[in-house]
């Protein structure tokens, strides 16, 4: 929120000299034009790879391979997307990714809310040990415990299951810290008043804290959804059947490796567009929450 608030404030400050300049008779400000031109150039450079991928996804194979590269869309979008959809079992891949992203995000939020609640609103023996354990998970990303985690999942029998894909991702130090931070800003009077009225802890969490937390929950959800959707090493390790693959991994079957396939880069790019659309759309449509979640979860 701080970024948005500040943006609004500075926009107001900026409006004043602009109005003054306009009154002085539309002085043409070359500096502003240059800044806009540079920014548009930056945006174009950043957008180019995605634009190029989209363009390729609408072309036929001869168009894709033609020289010079054709940089405008062609008319074969539907057939390429249909081919990608069928060949990669896309419906199932997208479903699996959605399950992983949504379940791991919601699970993280729920688990973190509960443990932050315990840490802030109770005194109990071992509180600092619990806090320390949660903190240390930051230092144990899956990359540093690959083999042994694989064995643990195998011995529980969770390979190729949604439980294995989601539950181990649900511990989150950052989400716990975010809720802890937020609970500490909730005025003491609220708890005291609730306790005077005989409200128990679980009811306090449900009826008082939860309604206050929606903004944090929404912001965290957006960030965690993207994190979950884009998981790679974890699902690669613990799934090996086609029905349990997530989309980021499954679409690789379509990569035309040099010399072994007809180079159907158009179908590959169509699949890539389908795989990246959900998280990108979430960022675009929930941008306010996304920026809030990004910045606050790092505090």
């Amino acid at each position, binding site marked *: 929120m701080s970024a948005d608030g500040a*943006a609004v404030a500075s926009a107001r400050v900026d409006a004043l000299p602009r109005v003054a300049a306009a009154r002085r008779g539309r002085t043409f400000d070359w500096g502003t034009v240059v800044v806009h031109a540079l920014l548009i150039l930056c945006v174009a450079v950043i957008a180019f790879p995605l634009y190029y991928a989209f363009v390729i996804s609408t072309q036929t194979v001869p168009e894709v391979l033609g020289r010079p590269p054709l940089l405008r869309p062609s008319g074969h979008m539907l057939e390429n997307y249909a081919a990608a959809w069928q060949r990669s079992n896309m419906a199932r891949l997208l479903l699996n990714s959605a399950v992983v992203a949504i379940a791991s995000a919601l699970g993280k939020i729920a688990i973190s809310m509960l443990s932050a609640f315990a840490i802030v609103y109770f005194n109990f023996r071992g509180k600092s040990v*619990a806090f320390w354990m*949660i903190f240390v*998970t930051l230092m144990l990303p899956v990359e540093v*415990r*690959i083999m042994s985690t694989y064995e643990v999942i195998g011995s529980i029998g969770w390979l190729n299951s949604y439980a294995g894909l989601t539950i181990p991702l649900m511990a989150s130090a950052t989400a716990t810290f975010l809720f802890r931070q937020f609970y500490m800003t909730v005025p003491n009077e609220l708890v005291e008043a609730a306790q005077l009225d005989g409200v128990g802890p679980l009811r306090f969490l449900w009826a008082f804290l939860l309604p206050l937390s929606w903004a944090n929950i929404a912001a965290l959800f957006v960030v965690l959804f993207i994190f979950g959707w884009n998981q790679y090493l974890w699902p690669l390790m613990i799934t090996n059947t086609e029905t349990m693959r997530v989309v980021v991994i499954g679409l690789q079957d379509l990569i035309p490796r040099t010399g072994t396939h007809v180079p159907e880069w158009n179908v590959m790019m169509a699949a890539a567009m389908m795989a990246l659309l959900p*998280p990108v759309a979430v960022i675009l449509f929930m941008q306010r929450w996304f920026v809030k979640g990004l910045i606050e979860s790092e505090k």
Partner: protein
Amino acid sequence: MKRAVFPNRLLPYLLVLPQIAVTGVFFFWPALESVRLSVFRTSPFGDKSFFVGLENFRKLLTSSEYYSSIVNSFLFAFGVTAIGLGAGLLVAALATQKIRGLAAYRTAVLWPYGIAPPIAGIIFLFIFHPSYGALPYWLSFVTSYEFNWLLKGWVAMALVIVATAWTHVGYNIAFFLAGLLAIPASVLEAASVDGAGAIRRFRSIIFPLLSPITFYLLVVNLIFSFFGSFGVIHAVTQGGPGRATEIMVFKVYNDGLIGLNLGSSAAQSVLLMLVVIALTAIQFRFVEKRVTYS
């Protein structure tokens, strides 16, 4: 500090139980198991194992392959971080000049963060494709050098670095924007009244005030590119050509899950743990400082 607390005795344990259970079973146990395995040599089928002390570490630290994976990891991490921070600061500094459209520009540069690095890698794989890609085609007008990532290690490294940095630049922009917008306009106006030009203002006022955020982003980008980089390598280069893009995280996976050399893979895990502990410690020392000073 929160003084009002609930008196329940059992309830807090139940509340932290899910988090602690997940943490214990999927984080602590495997981590300890990695430490244990790192001092054993286990046969590929896991049926026999011998205690070998620090032999696995000794072998790693005397192997040139392991050194090259360390060098590659740092090259990759510094490359991604340099591009991400440089481009992020540039775009954020431009967008906070006194112009309209800040929100629109922010939207226009933020979205690549949603793209998984392996997917970005596939897109750049095509852009860099030696026979069909646009980049080698355009470069062929400038130079006769062959930009073939399948043959030249540094081109492959550039490919994965650029693809990863592309997905991460929006993150850096978001943080730099928040930092730049928090600088009071009055300070900058005072400086320009005193005759400081745009570049002088940036060097003497904006950059020093941004340095905490820059340092924070430096550490986060290093952690991200050190550990989050597995996917793009696995999807695009598989560590090749030769071992030019074999980074430490990829080698742990390859030696363990593919090569079934459990002892060596576990020893590598332990060494990576030390790296991440060091980086996280640096990050949190800095956060503590920021909290006390603000």
